[in-house]
């Protein structure tokens, strides 16, 4: 009996150097949906992606992808699983010594025995779907940030994976590119029938395209729900996040001495 969830995270704990980064995380991500994971910087969102991809091992609890517990897989099994997963890194992480075409073709050449003519067609189709077919001869250094991100997107769907993870796909983009990427994520997920996990702190763009969202704060899930549920949430953390409030559960001031003490006010007018 296959569960509908593609990714299942249960009682996940992860610590780094005795610092607990994730505590008791429970998540279920159904197939074919766009799931968002949001939170402040450094709250462990990227670590979560790495745990799903098997790059790091949890301290306790487990992550199941397609009914397999990721950290218990042997090397070969892990590699087979990874062939069905993809990750879009924050700044694209394109291979700088290969052209755009070769970047997208990389996985096809490494993992399949397809003849070059077939690969050529496939690469052009993938590039066309992100609108960059004409740029196939350029080198990554010649691309703008938005274009690089799109090529990386084309690369990540090269082998039609069942799961794609996006690490801050909206970071540092201009409004047009923002919209394009968001649009592409939504459309490709539906067209290819895959599952997308979106890690970001761009509230505006992501709430437009996700089906479900989790909020992480201080290593635990602060809130979760559909976009409309979350917008109406009364949880102070979620409220602050969604409405971009300057101060709230995430404080404005970094912990410090009393202001008067730092300015030496007590002794000045003694």
């Amino acid at each position, binding site marked *: 009996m296959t569960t509908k969830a593609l990714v299942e995270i249960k009682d996940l704990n992860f610590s780094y150097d005795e610092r607990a980064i994730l505590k008791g995380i429970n998540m279920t991500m159904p197939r074919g949906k766009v799931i968002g994971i949001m939170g402040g910087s450094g709250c462990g969102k990227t670590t979560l992606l790495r745990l799903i*991809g098997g*790059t790091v091992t949890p301290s306790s609890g487990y992550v199941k992808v397609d009914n397999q517990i990721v950290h218990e897989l042997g090397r070969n099994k892990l*590699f*087979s699983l*990874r*062939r069905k*997963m*993809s*990750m879009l*890194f*924050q*700044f694209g*992480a*394109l*291979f*700088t010594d290969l052209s755009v075409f070769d970047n997208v073709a*990389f*996985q096809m050449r*490494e*993992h399949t025995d397809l003849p070059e003519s077939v690969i050529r067609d496939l690469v052009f189709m993938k590039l066309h779907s992100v609108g960059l077919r004409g740029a196939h001869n350029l080198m990554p250094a010649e691309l703008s940030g938005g274009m690089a991100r799109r090529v990386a997107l084309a690369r990540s769907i090269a082998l039609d994976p069942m799961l794609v993870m996006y690490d801050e796909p909206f970071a540092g983009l201009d409004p047009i590119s923002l919209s394009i990427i968001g649009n592409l994520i939504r459309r490709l997920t539906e067209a290819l029938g895959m599952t997308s996990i979106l890690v970001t702190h761009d509230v505006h763009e992501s709430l437009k395209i996700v089906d479900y969202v989790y909020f992480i704060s201080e290593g635990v899930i602060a809130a979760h729900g559909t976009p409309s549920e979350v917008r109406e949430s009364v949880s102070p953390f979620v409220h602050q996040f969604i409405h971009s409030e300057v101060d709230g559960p995430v404080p404005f001031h970094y912990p410090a001495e009393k202001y008067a003490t730092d300015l030496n006010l007590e002794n000045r007018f003694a």
Partner: protein
Amino acid sequence: MPRRIVLGIRSVGHRVIDSVWRLGYAARFFSLILLKSGTSIRRFGLIIRELYFTGVLTMIIILVSGLFVGMVLGLQGYETLQKYGAETAVGTLVALSLVRELGPVVAALLFASRAGSAITAEIGLMKATEQLEAMGMMAVDPIARIVAPRFWAGVISMPLLAAMFSAMGIFGGYLVAVVLIGVDEGSFWSQMQSAVDFRFDIVNGIIKTCVFGVAITAIAVFEGYDAQPTAEGVSGATTRTVVTSALVILGLDFVLTSFMFRGVG
């Protein structure tokens, strides 16, 4: 006062333990490279590409330096030898110095500075821009695909470059001694040929360069792979490659020389 001393000793102890740990980590990394070299051999094109960047691009500096070192040896050698009326031995002097010591060592130092640092910087930058991790996520082992080809390219390039260095050096010595100064050409070559023994001098020199090649390239790829993924991290790693390589070359040179040239002359 005592507290500072205690802290000082503690930090020294820390450093030593860290270095030992790092050495063990490096050794494990090295064995991983060897284990995963299958891909490099099956897809030799990968090694050829790296041979271009490691070997061909270092050729110029090797040839030019070799020429100048040989010319200086010829010049200085002649100056001193002619005082004893032994100027025809200048060929022997140049050839033996180059083939036994200067060729392997200087070529290795140049190789470490140019090719070694380039390898470290390249791998370090790939790490900093998450390219290595991306490759891992695509189920392509970065050690097999990126690190191993560079390692074998360095190992193959080093002896070839050192041989070119020595050959150019001898040519430089010939230019200065025979062509410029006027030492007898016949005696130049014949004395050299009788003094330089193939098995003893040349083969030993080649063994040295092979050992150096392995050491330098191993250090270069390790520092790159282990670099902190930041700008300072990569630049620190590059510096460490050059410095560590230089020390290791000179140390190994002493060890190898004492083994090889015991009881000669």
